[in-house]
């Protein structure tokens, strides 16, 4: 491995550690600094897809996604997680879910003591529907 390549990976790992610190900080209730939003390296233009790398890197996650509804219908990782690098969101925001599921998101965020996280009911990546316990009520149409 060349020296330059070693330096590149070393600096990348340093970024990951900083990002991880940010994540831990956010989990403890403090706002992460803006520079530590990303915990995913910027992969640039690519001939691959997210799932091609993650089949090796995070096989359980990739398998859960692939076998779930989002995987079957090719709703790929970035729809929920955003882009890589600084735009990456480790925890998908409800705004992402609302792009396709606005009524469901509204129904849970408007409710008293509303659920703030879709994934407390729908397991992350597999995102299976939950039977007989929907808080969403009747689907709403109309202008956002």
């Amino acid at each position, binding site marked *: 491995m060349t020296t330059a390549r070693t330096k590149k990976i070393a600096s990348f790992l340093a970024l990951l550690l900083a990002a991880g610190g940010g994540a831990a900080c956010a989990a403890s209730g403090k706002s992460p600094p803006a520079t530590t939003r990303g915990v995913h390296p910027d992969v640039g233009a*690519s001939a691959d897809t997210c799932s091609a*790398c993650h089949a090796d890197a995070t096989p359980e996650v990739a398998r859960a996604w692939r076998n779930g509804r989002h995987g079957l219908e090719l709703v790929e990782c970035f729809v929920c997680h955003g882009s890589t690098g600084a735009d990456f969101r480790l925890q998908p925001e409800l705004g992402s879910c609302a792009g396709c599921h606005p009524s469901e998101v509204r129904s849970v965020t408007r409710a008293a003591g509303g659920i703030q996280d879709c994934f407390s009911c729908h397991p992350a990546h597999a995102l299976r529907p939950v039977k007989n316990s929907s808080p969403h009520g009747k689907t709403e149409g109309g202008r*956002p």
Partner: protein
Amino acid sequence: MTVSRRDFLKTTAAASALAALGSPGRALASPAGPMTWTKSVCRYCGTGCGLYVGVQDGKVKAVQGDRDNHNAGFLCLKGFLLPQIMAAPDRHLHPLVRTNGKLVRASWDEAMGLVASRFKEAIEKHGPDAVGFYGSGQGLTEETYVANKLFKAGLRTNNVDGNPRLCMASATAGYVSTYGKDEPMGCYEDIDHADVFLIVGSNTAEAHPILFRRIVQRKEKGKGVKVIVLDPRRTPTSRIADLHISFTPGTDLAILNAMANVLLGDGLADEAFVKGHVAFGEGAEANKAFEDYKRFLAEYTPAHAAQVAGCNPEDIVKAARWFGEKGRAAMSMWTMGLNQRTKGVWANNLVHNLHLLTGKIGLPGSTPLSLTGQPNACGGVRDGGALSHLLPYGRLVANEKHREEMEKLWGVAKGTLAPKPGLSAMDLFRGMEEGKLKCLYVMCTNPGQSLPNVDRYRKAMASESSFLVVAEAYHPTRTSELADVVLPAALWAEKEGVYGCTERRYQLLAKAVEPPAEARTDFEILCELARRLGHEKLIPFQKPEEAWAEILTLSKGTPYDFSGMTRERLRDSHGLLWPLPAHGHPGTKRRYVRGEDPLVPAAHPQRVLFYGRPDKRAVIWLRPHKPPEEVPDAAYPMYFTTGRVMEHWHTGTMTRNCRELRQANSEAVAEMHPADAARLGVKSGDLVRISSRRGHEKFQVRLAEGGRPGLVFVHMHDDQRMCNRITIDAVDPVSRQPEFKICAIKVEKA
């Protein structure tokens, strides 16, 4: 910092471990402050998904699916990321004119003055057929209408064509030859009633993901729903297949005939339906009988077809029996796998044959539905008659009565419209090559990347002997880089107009934001060109809705009749399906069906009436299997095919501007079966040189377990590694659509 895939894999384990420490649980990403929402339609494929455009501070910031439209609020990942296409760094903002070999900034007056003078000069010196227009299934209906009217009735040339010729011309010719009229008779709602899906030559999961979603839902909810996929490659669509038949490219005609053979042999034909509604034909004449068809099919035993196609005969039998089972609704869907072929019209006919033979047509869930690739190929170009052989709403250039009708409607003198069809897509560019076509106006499309055998036609476009005008939202593209004038065009939410999608659904896209800098709508640009060319009386429009009012009058009394589809109704609705001949009419889900189609008399004694042909019958055509134009040989021993992937669209000018999409599948790679890679001594990531008799390109290898041995697939979206350097420019003799899907290649380690 950017890292390679290898670096990524080495370090992701660390990232994952850190991620497991806890979830940040950040706040919603919604921009602060109020957002205004404007009803619109997705800019990409022909599914026509309804959505709302979210605007804040005069910029498009978000989109949200329209729950009240057919897509039930769902968008695919490309639609979801549409806001990013608007403020892209390569948005074209100012007119450019080529001066001393370079494109330099000019005023609108200078640019339009040059365009008008060059078109006038060419017409004066060489006649009206020295100029042409090459449009797009992505232009708005009103834009395409202005161009079609200006060129055909104003400049008096039928050299008006567009990229739908590359996309769906064979589907059009298939419907017209079988039923006498273009466009599908069924609708998306049929998906919810189908018991059997025959998906042939379509990677629906990637090319039409929201329709694929609806098929998935039907398969989950319906009882014993079967999905049959005919495709040489095993694509993501096959994940829901109960039966996937892989076959040698170009041999599906034999398979489809063999399915008909089984339907007859197993007593699954609906003899009463055939007797009441079907004629038989060969060549161009409906001059055969049922007995002739039976004799014709005798050759196509499952065993024979399987031998031709390189598949299992049992699978053909199974597919036919599933399709033909009595009492079960059968729906077929297809797209470029059938259309982009030199036998494309015949392949379309053979799918229709299966429906007509079994009577599985015009019933909920039983219909042949051609899927469309672009958002307004149907509404704007195909229905609007903006192809070189057509006039609006089913009228033909070569038909004197139709020309007279249009001359009257357009208020021009009898004899104004030229009787000879103009140059179709490939012939326009061959005309440039030959020096016969002096000036070409290209709107909203990218032939410098999308034509087959593209280098041949890039030379013609770049030639100093031709004058190329490109109206585009982005620059440079692989076409605008060759142009003499590049006009900055407004994009999608920056303008208002109508789109018409696969299922005859017309929808209004409202304007949500202003165009950037000096960009103008194509409608404004074309109206300005008309004025400069002295045709302001023919093209008097100030606003698109004025053109729409005129368009409604042209549809009246035709099989398309949507004269009740006023602007107000379109604004209030979430899509309307024609025919819709009166203001209060709800629209038509299923054509040719009594009780649904207003053109079928309520008292008609039978459930369907194929009114498109003089004998009121649809035609089962006797179409033999014929090989593609080019098959592998000793010099070029493998098959080459091209198509779409999920993350990108057409030539990538929009999708490459979305950060997430640029990171996924943006580089075209050569997907091949592992056995081929082993034989060639290459592995995933190696560079190979792919050559055909026309050209060559280098690609990285990707091993595809679902590939077919002997076949290489490359996607069409990469502007740097262009698959069309390799593809063949042979066309179907009827539809004039090129055979993008099949040619012969050799592959060498680079």
